[in-house]
């Protein structure tokens, strides 16, 4: 392991010369306006790019606007200026090719586990039997067997997030947009799901955009980390994580480069007094 972490000072798109990014943000800004209140700037000129199959994290202090950026990429929120492109086409609305996983799971409480996972498949026009088969396949992928008939209220937080992940994976999206998906879970469940997510990502080779405020999580999962500044957020630094894959948490923590990288990112997050 020659070098761990390298800070780019050039823009993201320049570092990707030669390959078409799967997801690309150019000068994206967002200002929230509400009747009778002062406008609140949330994002300021964000440039970001993710190559096909790449695992990219957005790391920033809580409330900095990183989720807002993800919602813009998902098509839920319109940018005030700038544009996010998916395969070169500007994003205007949500689409099944960009699957989203929320921190709060956002499962449909009136549907069973199987009903939740098949929901998106019904929209794709699959037959009933095909839907169930495919849903079971993805439930197995997230290590969730034998709970098909339960309602979300009967599941633990970790199980709910597995269902939400399976629901999103089942429609086979090209890009996974994940908004602090493990933020509401306890430390152990979180660690287990991180390992599982890495496994799934390595098998399916989807492009992932992952929002988090945990430095360790970002390093463990990502190929590249975009460090956001506090609100209004902009990209403070882009850091390549050049740890070997498949990664092992113990080995990662023992790696002499890891503390340095952790420290450097931590400093970037902390001395944001500007």
């Amino acid at each position, binding site marked *: 392991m020659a070098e761990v972490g390298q800070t780019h000072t050039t823009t993201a798109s320049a570092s990707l010369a030669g390959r078409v990014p799967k997801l690309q943000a150019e000068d994206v800004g967002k200002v929230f306006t509400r*009747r*009778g209140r002062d*406008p609140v700037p949330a994002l300021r000129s964000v440039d970001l790019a993710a190559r096909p199959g790449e695992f990219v994290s957005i790391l920033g202090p809580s409330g900095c606007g990183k989720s807002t950026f993800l919602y813009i990429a998902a098509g839920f929120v319109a940018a005030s200026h700038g544009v996010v492109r998916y395969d070169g086409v500007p994003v205007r609305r949500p689409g099944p090719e960009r699957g989203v996983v929320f921190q709060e799971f956002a499962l449909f409480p009136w549907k069973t586990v199987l009903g939740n996972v098949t929901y998106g498949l019904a929209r794709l026009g699959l037959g009933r039997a095909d839907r169930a088969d495919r849903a079971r396949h993805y439930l197995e992928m997230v290590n969730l067997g034998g709970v098909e008939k339960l309602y979300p209220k009967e599941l633990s937080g970790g199980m709910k997030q597995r269902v939400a992940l399976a629901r999103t994976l089942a429609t086979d999206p090209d890009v996974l947009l994940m908004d602090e998906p493990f933020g509401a879970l306890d430390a152990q469940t979180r660690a287990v799901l991180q390992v599982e997510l890495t496994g799934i990502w390595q098998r399916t080779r989807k492009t992932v955009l992952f929002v988090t405020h945990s430095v360790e999580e970002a390093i463990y999962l990502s190929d590249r980390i975009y460090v956001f500044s506090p609100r209004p957020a902009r990209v403070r630094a882009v850091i390549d994580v050049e740890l070997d894959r498949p990664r092992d948490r113990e080995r990662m923590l023992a790696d002499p480069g890891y503390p340095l990288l952790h420290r450097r990112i931590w400093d970037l997050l902390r001395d944001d007094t500007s």
Partner: protein
Amino acid sequence: MTRPDRSAIRAAIRAVAALAAGVAAPAAGVAALLLAWELAPRLGLVRAASVPPFSRVFAEAGTVLADPAFRAEVGGSALRWALGFAAALGIGVPLGLVMARSRFVRHAVEPVLTMSYPVPKVALILILVLLFGIGTLARVIIVVLACLIPIVISSFHGADAVEPRLIWSARGLGTSRLGTLFRVVLPAALPSVLSGVRLAIGVSIFALMAAELMIRQSGVGAYLFTYYDLGDSPRVWATAALIATAGFLLDAAYVRGVKFGLRWLAGEI
């Protein structure tokens, strides 16, 4: 520094746009309704003799308001309503609070509520007349009966949802059981109580109007239906519109009053 100026202009434009959307759309809805009322009889879509145009009813409403007989009836109705309403508050709120704090009372009262809830109280009007005569009492009782259920239920739910730690800390500070009921449980349950009271206002005016038109002794409801029997349709429409408006104004005044009086309340009642 031109930014403050520009943002001020933008804010002004936004405010005007919001005002237009917030006022124009609702106004359009109301205007459409009134226009339909005005035009339908004039264009002969409905018989003008039975459905007079809005302008005619509006003018007639002035006549009704000036009628001393109507004014006297309003006073009588208001008095009967206030008596019944006050009695329902006096019984309903304490009962609801106690229900939440005492398992025995709760188990005793809950079946009564569940069974009496789906019974239309108006069905009892003539029975009450039979039992208590056509005087004031029967009509006051019907108001009490109509108010009681929403008030008891909302007080119970409000008090039942009070954070137990709030009560424990008050008890720890030396407040008596009865003291906690009025110093902790009631204030904490107040938002729920107040929304129940709002429902009760609506139901009880309905019940009073129904009672007055059945008993026909006196009251606004009796006034309305006397003119209905006489076939004076402008007077009927005008009186009905006035009663409807009064119901709306009472509700609006209640909501405003609560918001003004209890500014610490979060959310709507």
